[in-house]
């Protein structure tokens, strides 16, 4: 799966080198959105066919909410610690 990273880096390099092409930024953003559109639909399909996930959707939702809350709190609390230290 390091191929994913290589392809990503190739995209960045190529994008940087050809950044003078007009609308390349806009165009690549739109294509990405379209591809995400397709991928999310296909992820939805495989999730819909997976009864283990469907039967546990509420539990999965609650766990996801917990993860989101911990991620947000972690960042905000570290920011507060950081700014307190700076003031001293």
């Amino acid at each position: 799966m390091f191929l994913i990273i290589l392809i990503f880096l190739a995209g960045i390099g190529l994008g940087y080198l050809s950044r003078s092409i007009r609308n390349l930024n806009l165009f690549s953003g739109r294509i990405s959105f379209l591809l995400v559109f397709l991928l999310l639909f296909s992820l939805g399909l495989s999730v819909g066919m997976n009864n283990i996930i469907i039967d546990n959707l509420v539990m999965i939702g609650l766990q996801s909410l917990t993860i989101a809350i911990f991620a947000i709190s972690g960042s905000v609390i570290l920011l507060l610690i950081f700014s307190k230290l700076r003031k001293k």
Partner: protein
Amino acid sequence: MKGSFVLLFMFCLGVFVGHKFPDFFQTGYDSGALILFLLMFFVGVHLGSSREFLDILRNTGFKIVEIPIITISGTLAGMLILSLFPVDFSLKELLAVGSGFGYYSLSSMIISRISGEMLAVVALLSNILREIISIILTPLLVKYFGSASPIVSAGATSMDTALPVIARFAGSDYVFPAVFNGIVLTLLVPFLVVFFLNL
């Protein structure tokens, strides 16, 4: 934010169709990998061709990198603490999911390739929730925790979907740091997700 709802709707539509008509799609042909590679490429081109990153760095100096560093370390620390509680996921799975930083589409797609649908759904939902909660809480975050707090909370989405509310409630001084934070995190999402899943 409208785009997010469109994408969420697509996902739900997929779940519905897949659940009701499972026989139509069990053909065994897998085009998902190719689409993911195309997506990685075009997201790369999009980031590489954006001028904002270097412009902001040039105009504001290196002090601006503090915010993305805090976002990343804070999120990962949060995941570390969460792993001490009885949860269904291992530390490396939590770190990978947290490394989406709100960028739910890319992170969940990479995770679905490497770890399967279950963790991908968790990545999708938790990162969408991070985006939505950050946007909704921005006025409160600014009031109680300072103007930079909605930026670290929004993570990678501080440069697009969360930017309008951040600009409004934190003030225009925080637009550049927000965009910069978003670009840095978006760049790092694929690296960190792949890294943590391979631990």
